[in-house]
């Protein structure tokens, strides 16, 4: 069993499991048959990050910030417009389906909605055996044994082998989704909002399961969520996205102790605390997230930022290392921190 590695500080020497550089995904806007406006939704617009061995990177942001698109690109359910996705040093971004195949074993995904992401016509057992068959486990008995082992790993049992998805509760279905992702022993699992559709008491069961599995198997997670408390619980490092860009990234301890980017601060302060006597200064942002078709120039957060000046709209700030391991995209950081 692999011990989870200590949190690798962002360093360019140690080779991470996954490294994403300058990733962009633009979707052309359909303005009608004759239009060639060239307008595009810049869902992901120049994102860099890495995920180490046995590490969890939490990716947090509000709806429309591009976090799901980013996750889909990492598993190659979508093809990026530009940039590279280095998996163990190999760029998988330009690979076609055939060339991608060996990497599919290594990179898997768990989806948000356990009701729509399972095939209603396959039993739990058939669903778990399918990837094994596709990836070359020829012997049927071997596949069955592995499927039973997987059910056990996620807290289900042999009784569930012949059941269909509709016979399971939401939490059980998500366990099944996790078992399916684990079938081929992947090194990286993209978890896209895996607990958002679940009730509180079931949510904590699934989070415990994901953490246990990581401790036992040593896999890495790219964990996507809009829920800051979930992200805090599971992550080693956290990246905050706003309108297609990462605005802040740091270790979980650093970012929760001292969020630096004005957006991160507002986001953290807006989470309602389950304590009626909580004394907190809440930063209430004005307006809503601008359209990614026509984002504000310069820093994308200027339209809602309480500290914005003209200079913020003039240049696009770079992600800069403010403290060791704590990267922030803000030109006024030294004045406002």
């Amino acid at each position, binding site marked *: 069993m692999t011990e989870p590695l200590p949190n690798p500080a962002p360093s360019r020497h140690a080779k991470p499991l996954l490294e994403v550089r300058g990733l962009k995904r633009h979707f052309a806007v359909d303005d009608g048959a004759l239009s060639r406006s060239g307008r595009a939704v810049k869902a992901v617009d120049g994102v860099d990050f890495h995920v180490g061995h046995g590490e969890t990177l939490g990716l947090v942001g*509000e*709806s429309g910030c591009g976090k799901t698109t980013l996750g889909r690109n990492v598993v190659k359910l979508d093809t990026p417009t530009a940039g590279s996705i280095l998996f163990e040093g190999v760029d998988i971004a330009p690979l076609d389906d055939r060339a991608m195949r060996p990497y599919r074993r290594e990179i898997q995904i768990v989806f948000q909605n356990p009701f729509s992401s399972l095939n209603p016509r396959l039993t739990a057992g058939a669903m778990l055996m399918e990837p094994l068959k596709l990836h070359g486990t020829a012997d049927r008995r071997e596949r069955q044994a592995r499927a039973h082992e997987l059910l056990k790993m996620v807290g289900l049992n042999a009784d569930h082998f012949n059941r269909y998805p509709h016979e399971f*509760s939401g*939490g059980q279905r998500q366990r099944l989704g996790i078992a399916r992702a684990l079938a081929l022993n992947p090194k990286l699992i993209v978890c896209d909002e895996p607990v958002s559709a679940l*009730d*509180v*008491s*079931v*949510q*904590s*069961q699934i*989070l*415990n399961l994901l*953490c246990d599995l990581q401790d036992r198997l040593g896999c890495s997670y790219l964990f996507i969520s*809009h*829920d*800051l*408390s*979930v992200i*805090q*619980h*599971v992550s080693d490092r956290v990246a905050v996205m706003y309108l297609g860009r990462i605005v802040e990234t740091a270790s*979980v*301890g650093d970012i*929760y*102790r001292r969020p630096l980017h004005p957006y991160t601060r*507002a*986001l*953290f302060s*807006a*989470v*309602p*605390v*389950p*304590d*009626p*006597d*909580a*004394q*907190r200064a*809440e930063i*209430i*942002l004005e307006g*809503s*997230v601008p359209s990614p078709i026509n984002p504000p120039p310069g820093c994308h957060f200027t339209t809602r930022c309480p500290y914005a000046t003209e200079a913020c709209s003039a240049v696009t700030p770079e992600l800069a290392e403010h403290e060791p391991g704590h990267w922030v995209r803000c030109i006024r950081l030294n004045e406002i921190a």
Partner: protein
Amino acid sequence: MIPATAPAAVEDTAVPSRETILKVENLRVELRGERGRIFAVDGVSFELRRGETLGIVGESGCGKSLTALSVIGLLPRPVGRIASGTITLKGAGNLERLPDSQMKRIRGNQISMIFQEPMTSLNPVFTVGFQISEVLRTHKGMSKAEARKRSIEMLTLVGIPLPEMRFDSYPHQLSGGMRQRVMIAMALACEPQIMLADEPTTALDVTIQAQILKLMNQLKERTGTSIVLITHDLGVIAKMATRILVMYAGTVVEEADVRDLFARPLHPYTQGLLNSILRLEPGREQRRQLYTIKGSVPSLYALPRGCRFSDRCPAVHEPCRVAEPPLVPPDDNPAGGDHKMRCWLHTKPTIQ
């Protein structure tokens, strides 16, 4: 947890009066499904006081939404119906027996409701202005021009920029937060006594949720409307509610003031819920096991005997599997008469 004495996040400037405006007694809602009949709401009683925010928390399927739909007379027909119990609105009498024509006059006028997903509860083929005006023209008999003027006032009140222009927008042209503001404008247009809010911010982002919750609190103070806030989010409840009902499998298992409930939850289910929620804790480095309530919510077709929570309860003991406990103040009453729960740990079974 020691509660601080200073009031904080809860904006309790307007002290709710003791005057009861809505009284629900022993409400049972029957649903007819393929596998027979069930009582999805089974003996729910509560009172709503003027100017207060009553929170109803519980997990999916606990009956919290059906309770609200019964109050406003919108139970899905013919699947659901009120089997027994009374719903009394001050000044209007018993709602559960009112014919549709009279219920229509109350709905939107004295009781209004906002839903989780504003896109599906607004009509996509009419402008938002038309939809708000319709409420006013129906209930207040306003002319088109008057209704337009008042609708624009309402849009201004809920903080929609350029209200004159937005009056002519269609729902799809607005963002999720803006749509929810429109729903609130529509719900408050006739200054109802009661607004039922069913997961009003669940579909919204946290920064937008913060805006909407603040708006609801401001409007409540201005109009004196009482709010029934239904949510699964204990953070939202802590911030908004003055009193809380915790529901489980169709019944109320605990009822208390917000501070009392968070400081001294008595029912094991409430304790489990509060323990299993994730809290933002600055400086926590070590990943810990989360508390979980074992098992899952029982099917209403196969409820355990006695207490509905007995199969999952860590403190289950002998009387629990025999009889369902009543909703009463605890015998060892630490908190005055307002704290009630349904649990044999705190109530002596009288008959054996």
